[in-house]
């Protein structure tokens, strides 16, 4: 087995009341991947992210991050949300410095200056073209700028695993594309491991080095009776070749065909793939099926 696993999930189940959301999820993610997770709405993408974050806990199974089980939120994981990522009462600079101050200084003393971290914060702000807005409050910024600050804020703490929950979901298409490029550049520059949840298949295929499709549209040997409670599984796991960064790639015929293929296999209630035939081509992909799911 690959010893370089950042994240390994095995036999994870999660249900809310009678509704099974995550159904026997298995996943290993190597360090340095930009792993995108897509799926039809309501399939449990955000639930899986919250489990990774430790905001909620699985009913069964194990979630191991860097060799330790995932507990309550801690600096092992960074997070960028679609909104509410920033502290509204702090300026942009203070928001970016928040990680350094909160983790290194006592809460009951006034913040002291930290020359090294401040220099790093400034360099990060320069990199994301936010220096001019440094003294502004989050509500004075546009949506795209806010998300850039949120990314800088999360990166300051150099989290071993960076989780992103639809971070660009509320942005207009141009800003969104710009942000995607920023993220890909930062990913390569800082050798980050990122787990990126989105509902936009184009985005997922474009920025990721690995694409995971979570979906409730599949079949298995448990039968088709309505009594069978079935939740979402990872129905597709692809390695993505990402050599160049130009946005023109999005309009290439190959890219479009690939997106359509993924969409057909994961997003359609009328085209259900059997658990044995999932497209799990990624070398790190694995799947443990129960006897009921795979009877032959």
């Amino acid at each position, binding site marked *: 087995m690959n010893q370089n696993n950042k994240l390994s999930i095995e036999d994870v189940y999660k249900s809310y009341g009678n509704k099974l959301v995550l159904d026997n999820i298995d996943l290993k993610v190597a360090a340095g991947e930009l792993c995108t997770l897509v799926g039809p709405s309501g399939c449990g993408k955000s639930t899986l992210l919250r489990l990774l974050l430790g905001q909620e806990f699985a009913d069964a199974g194990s979630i191991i991050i860097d060799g330790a089980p995932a507990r309550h939120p801690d600096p092992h*994981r960074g*997070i960028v949300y679609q909104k*509410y*990522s920033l502290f509204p009462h702090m300026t942009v600079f203070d928001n970016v410095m928040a990680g350094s101050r909160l983790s290194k200084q006592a*809460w*009951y003393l006034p913040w002291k200056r930290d020359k090294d971290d401040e220099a790093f914060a400034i360099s990060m702000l320069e990199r994301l073209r936010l220096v001019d807005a440094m003294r502004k409050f989050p509500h*004075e910024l546009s949506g795209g700028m806010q998300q850039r600050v949120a990314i800088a804020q*999360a990166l300051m703490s150099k989290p071993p695993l960076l989780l992103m929950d639809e971070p660009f979901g509320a942005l207009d298409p141009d800003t969104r594309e710009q942000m995607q490029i920023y993220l890909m550049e930062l990913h390569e520059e800082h050798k980050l491991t990122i787990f990126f949840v989105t509902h936009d298949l184009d985005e997922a295929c474009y920025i990721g080095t690995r694409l995971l499709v979570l979906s409730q549209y599949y079949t298995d040997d448990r039968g088709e009776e309505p009594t069978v409670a079935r939740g979402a599984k990872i129905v597709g796991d692809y390695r993505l070749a990402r050599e160049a960064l130009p946005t023109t790639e999005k309009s290439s015929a190959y890219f479009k065909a690939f997106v359509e293929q993924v969409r057909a296999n994961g997003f359609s209630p009328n085209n259900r793939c059997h658990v044995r035939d999932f497209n799990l081509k990624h070398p790190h992909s694995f799947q443990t099926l129960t006897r009921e799911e795979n009877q032959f």
Partner: protein
Amino acid sequence: MTANYKPVQPARLFGVHATPRNWHKLVLGLLPFILIIALYAYASHARKLDNPDDKLLPGFSQMVEAMQPLVMQPSPRNGQYVFWADTLSSLTRLALGCSLAFVAALWLGLNMGAFRGLEASASPFITFISMIPPLALLPMLFITLGVDEVGKVALIFIGTFPLMTRDVFIATKAIPREQLVKTLTLGGTQLAYLYRIALPQIMPRALDTFRLSLGAAWLFLIAAEAIASTDGLGYRIFLVRRYLAMDIIIPYVAWITLIGFLLDWALRVLARRLYPWYAGVNSK
């Protein structure tokens, strides 16, 4: 050829599109004050014509005359300037009761909003005791704590504390969960979340609540002073009531109102200075 239309002039005073100029607003704002004073002066004058000894609507010169010894001359009994001594003791009681209640409410409400365990225990209790009419407790307070300062401060505290606590609690609970998770993933502790993230975010709202509670605090202060006291603005009003001394009561009420207005204004300015981000966040 394009027709030469006149530029649109916005309405200044009437209709939903009106955008009054600043001097419009000043004049319009002063208008009710001027009207009420003029109306009073007229009524007072009319009664004086009828009965020169009328005590109910004293003229302004009468008020000045009556207030003069209280404001400008030391009392022959204890050498104090009565008006200023009354003001000082009333404000001391008000400040003590209100600030104690504010600090206690801030601390308890914040902890209740952040810690579910404490919430489960304290929330129903605070909701329950906030229903007690504080004035009904006044006799009990005077019996147990005595009729001097402690009893009056306690009444103001009990009268304002539950409501402020509930408001701080609600504001803390309304902070998105994301902010807590964010703090923890950035390496902050639970207490760092409480005092560095949650507290500054609710402070401007808490100051608003404090401002609104001042009205209730005045009510309890005057009530306590009216019943058992030897000085204070409320005490004086209820004392001179026996002599129908409207020429003292009216200036005292106007003075209380002015202090209340200035306190309210000062707190608003303070909140805007300390928390400049608050107005912007709320307007979104």
